[in-house]
């Protein structure tokens, strides 16, 4: 049995409010194996992004970890100093954000922004790093990488910018890539290309992926295992196929039924989409049950 790369144990987050506190994450536990693609689905406010920010050590006040551990390669990230965390971030754990325009520095060329990764984390000279940056752009299939390296973010389309983000994130061959809604801002055809790129590059390098999305189709396409988050709880977790074919939790069932499926109208006629609020008027009961399927034994 291999040790998990990322092991989040009983993580709880809260915003202090006077003497009490408002819970944001409640007892979330999951593991990501080396090289595995793990998906977190859920609606806005369910806590999926906050989970990833906690892993990156980017939680802002007033959010506070009230309980739990985030073990990355056996080390508890919550106990690391800011300096140690900064060394790890970008090098061993990297992140791709949703909106590449706001995540990139508008005042630096993309070549320089990628080169910075090599200078900061690998101690390369700027000249060397600039060459590596062009290679990195080529690896994410940006056409004319040497010319594109001199571009500023505003000179690029959304799809290209997201490729630059991927090049930056994968520059130091991280062990874990966190992708928070990486394609939500993109057109469908561009989305398909960007997803394929992430999948292929990560498979090639053995990088594990934590993919956060509200789009069940994207999750199904990318991930081996999926966790469903609702209201700060991980309510269901299973292998992707099992979760889609055989959802156990009422919320997961509702979520899957709320989605218009391609081809279903042709086969079954137009049926009403499931309205979660009408099946479960009191949503607070949803967090009382959890279905976490055990991981299958790794075939020897």
């Amino acid at each position: 049995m291999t040790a998990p790369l990322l092991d989040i144990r009983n993580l709880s987050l809260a915003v202090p409010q006077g003497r009490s506190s408002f819970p944001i994450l409640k007892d979330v536990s999951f593991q990501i194996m080396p090289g595995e693609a793990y998906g977190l689905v859920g609606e806005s406010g369910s806590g999926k992004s906050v989970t990833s920010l906690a892993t990156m050590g980017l939680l802002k006040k007033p959010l506070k970890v009230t309980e739990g551990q985030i073990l990355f390669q056996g080390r508890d990230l919550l106990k690391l100093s800011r300096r140690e965390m900064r060394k790890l971030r970008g090098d061993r754990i990297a992140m791709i954000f949703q909106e590449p325009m706001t995540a990139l520095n508008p005042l630096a060329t993309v070549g320089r922004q990628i080169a910075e990764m090599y200078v900061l984390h690998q101690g390369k000279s700027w000249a060397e790093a600039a060459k590596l940056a062009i290679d990195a752009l080529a690896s994410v299939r940006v056409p004319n990488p040497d010319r594109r390296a001199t571009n500023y973010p505003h000179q690029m389309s959304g799809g290209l910018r997201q490729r630059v983000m991927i090049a930056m994130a994968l520059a130091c061959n991280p062990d874990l890539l966190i992708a928070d809604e990486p394609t939500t801002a993109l057109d469908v055809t561009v989305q398909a290309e960007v997803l394929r790129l992430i999948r292929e590059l990560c498979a090639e390098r053995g990088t594990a992926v934590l993919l956060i999305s509200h789009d069940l189709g994207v999750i199904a396409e990318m991930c081996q295992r999926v966790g469903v988050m609702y209201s700060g709880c991980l309510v269901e977790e299973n292998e992707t196929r099992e979760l889609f074919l055989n959802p156990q939790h009422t919320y997961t069932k509702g979520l899957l039924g709320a989605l218009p499926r391609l081809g279903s109208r042709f086969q079954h006629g137009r049926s009403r989409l499931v309205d979660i609020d009408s099946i479960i008027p009191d949503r607070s009961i949803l967090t009382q049950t959890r279905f976490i399927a055990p991981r299958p034994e790794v075939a020897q």
Partner: protein
Amino acid sequence: MTAPILEIDDLHVHFPVTGGGLLGTGRKTLHAVNGLSLHLNKGECLSLVGESGCGKSTTALAVMGLQEPTSGSIRFRGQPFSGPEAPGRMDRARAAQIVFQDPYASLNPRQTVWASLAAPLRLHGVTAKSEVEDRIATMLKSVGLSAEQGRRFPHEFSGGQRQRIGIARALILGPEIVVLDEPVSALDVSIRAQIINLLLDLQDQFGLSYLMISHDLSVVEHMSDRVAVMFFGEIVETGPWQSIFTNPIHPYCRRLIATIPDPDVILGRSRKPTDGEQPDPPAGWRFADTGLESPDLTKKPDPSELVEVEPDHFVRLARI
């Protein structure tokens, strides 16, 4: 056969762009919409599908009278709806309304919902207080909100509720055409389902004709009666939803359908209509563009026309 409620004929919308030459010598024209013809029948939902920048929103703005067409005509119930003979703003408002994509940006934060709904009524001559109250309360009820909630400000509502308010505002004057500009793409999955259900119910209830703009093809398949696929200012394929989704022909349309991440297809429970080979164009025709490269929008495209391949199913082809 009744006449269509909205007819768009050979619509062109061009924008001047500077080509970077000295003294304006490099001035070029961007063909945002290039010879688009469409019709919308009473009570149906027609979806315009395509990538950002393909001209679908420009088309919608032209229908709403917010963008003057360069040439071509838009007719509403046979009467001109664009150009010099177009009706005034007031008549237009009673004929067509729009629901915007972002319910956070499209409501006035300083106006209560009630005020946003009462203003158009007063402008259109409904001044009796009891009638205004009545119509607003009924409208709020049809979109699933209570009359009491109308007294609140937009920031007190969730995204889904705001989109309900946006819909109520569009419907308060009883328009016949509602343009839906990405009505659910800013919403969460479960809220999306509620709004889609609501839009379909309202369409039935009021006999509305929808012109929907969307890039989410699974929503389009669920809601539409007919679909028009746009690629760089032109319609490349149009037809009843069954034809578009079971027998897509144009390479771009097929690529669009092939790239939707659909859980059922990925898990092998169903097949996509695009799994097979790309069908050949009918004899004597070729595809004018493959949909793989973006054409130069400042140049006139090669001549091509929409050819009927099945009843009411048209594909853009060029003669060999």
